[in-house]
């Protein structure tokens, strides 16, 4: 069976177009687990995308105030260096993924392609209103990340399409990510949250992971936070912070499963959101 190691997106999508059963392989940290456990057996073309320079690189567009990250950029690259300074919440999320071995292999595009509700990078992309660039043999298109993520492991990817890059707006303000798991290392999120405070637009964004079929935004909590926060120092009066936490819990849609209960998850995302907002104001005080 053919294994393609293309070095351009054009060559990759041509290989995908030639075989409707073709499988895209990036870091392998999700796909290979499915294969090793016998849940999936590739019997056709494999298209390995993590050696395509366009997918392995990132660039900053100062005019648009965005960063465009190639789909095969690893968590390790997001965790440190200039990308971590530009997108600190994404760096925090990346640092909580698996182990160094997993972060060396796993990619941001793979996180999106798998589209698990617990994907650590995804609440950050949702809170920052990122967009996803997709390519097929016939066209390229861009979709908002909120439309790309359709449900549990369901995305807007069409047959023959692959993820090329993710474009993330740079925000003047504060951003942070926090998650709850059963221990510190090597853990899947039981509940997670990302808070973004955009000082220029006076806009607050809160996105939640592991408490719904996919990543959820919290429009009511966001509105209350934006209306009550002191935009000069991110201070929120304690009553309002309690309300934000309650609204976040109310906007979550958790289920009980082998990792946790719906009740715990609903409580936890409220705590995480409050904690992140407090962290924003204490960071501001220290600065």
């Amino acid at each position, binding site marked *: *069976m*053919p*294994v*393609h*190691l*293309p*070095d351009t997106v054009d060559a990759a999508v041509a*290989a995908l177009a030639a075989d409707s059963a073709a499988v895209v*392989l990036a*870091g*392998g*940290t999700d*796909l*290979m*687990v499915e*294969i*090793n*456990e016998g849940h*999936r*057996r*590739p*019997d056709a073309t*494999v298209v*390995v995308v993590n050696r395509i320079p366009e997918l392995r690189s990132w660039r900053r567009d100062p005019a648009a105030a965005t960063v465009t990250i190639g789909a095969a950029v690893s968590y390790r690259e997001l965790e440190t260096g200039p990308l971590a300074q530009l997108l600190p919440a994404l760096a925090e999320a990346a640092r909580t993924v*698996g*182990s*160094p*071995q*997993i972060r*060396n*292999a796993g990619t941001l595009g793979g996180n999106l392609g798998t589209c698990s509700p617990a994907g650590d990078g995804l609440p950050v992309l949702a809170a920052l209103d990122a967009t996803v660039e997709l390519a097929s043999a016939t066209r390229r298109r861009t979709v908002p990340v909120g439309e790309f993520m359709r449900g549990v492991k369901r995305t807007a990817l069409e047959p023959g399409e692959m993820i090329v890059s993710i474009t993330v707006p740079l925000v003047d303000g504060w951003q942070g990510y926090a998650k709850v798991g059963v221990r*510190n*290392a*090597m853990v899947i999120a039981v509940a997670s949250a990302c808070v973004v405070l955009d000082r220029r637009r006076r806009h607050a964004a809160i996105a939640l992971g592991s408490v719904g079929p996919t990543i959820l935004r919290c429009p009511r909590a966001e509105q209350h936070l934006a209306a009550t926060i002191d935009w000069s120092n991110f201070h929120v009066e304690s009553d309002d912070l309690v309300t934000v936490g309650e609204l976040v819990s109310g906007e979550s849609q958790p289920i009980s499963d082998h990792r946790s209960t719906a009740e715990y998850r609903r409580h936890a995302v409220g705590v995480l959101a409050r904690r992140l907002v407090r962290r924003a104001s204490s960071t501001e005080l220290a600065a």
Partner: protein
Amino acid sequence: MTHDSDHYALDVNGERREVTDSWLGESLLDVLRDRLGLMGTKGACEQGECGSCSVLLDGVLVCSCLVMAASAVGQPVVTIEGVAPVGSPSDVQQAFVEAGAVQCGFCTPGLIMAVHDLLERSAAPTETEIREELAGNVCRCTGYGRILDAVQQVAVARRGSVS
């Protein structure tokens, strides 16, 4: 570049190794052990949780159970067999012996790979840094204390030999 999953060559420990009759989707771990006879790399969880199958792929520490072997064509692979010749252990291997960081030994090859990788990137790691960097290598015997000791011994010895 395109090749057939039934027949390809890998660069393992500096040697070109032919792989034949591999099934599409077979992991690098299985190819190393079952087809190339390199038994030093251990397999346990097959889902990237235990780190016992750690190798360097293109200079990067990864779990070989999560690498599709046919995707590794053209990228150098270094396994525990490639770290040092038999009979003359590396400084990390020697430190593991001296510190008593080995009990049953099953996790040891993966840990040796991870410690070499860690010390290449960080010459004077703190205990927190060592714990975080080795978080993907599970050991069920030692309780990790002597493994941490071994890493510090090598770090101190290497700094001493530089100055």
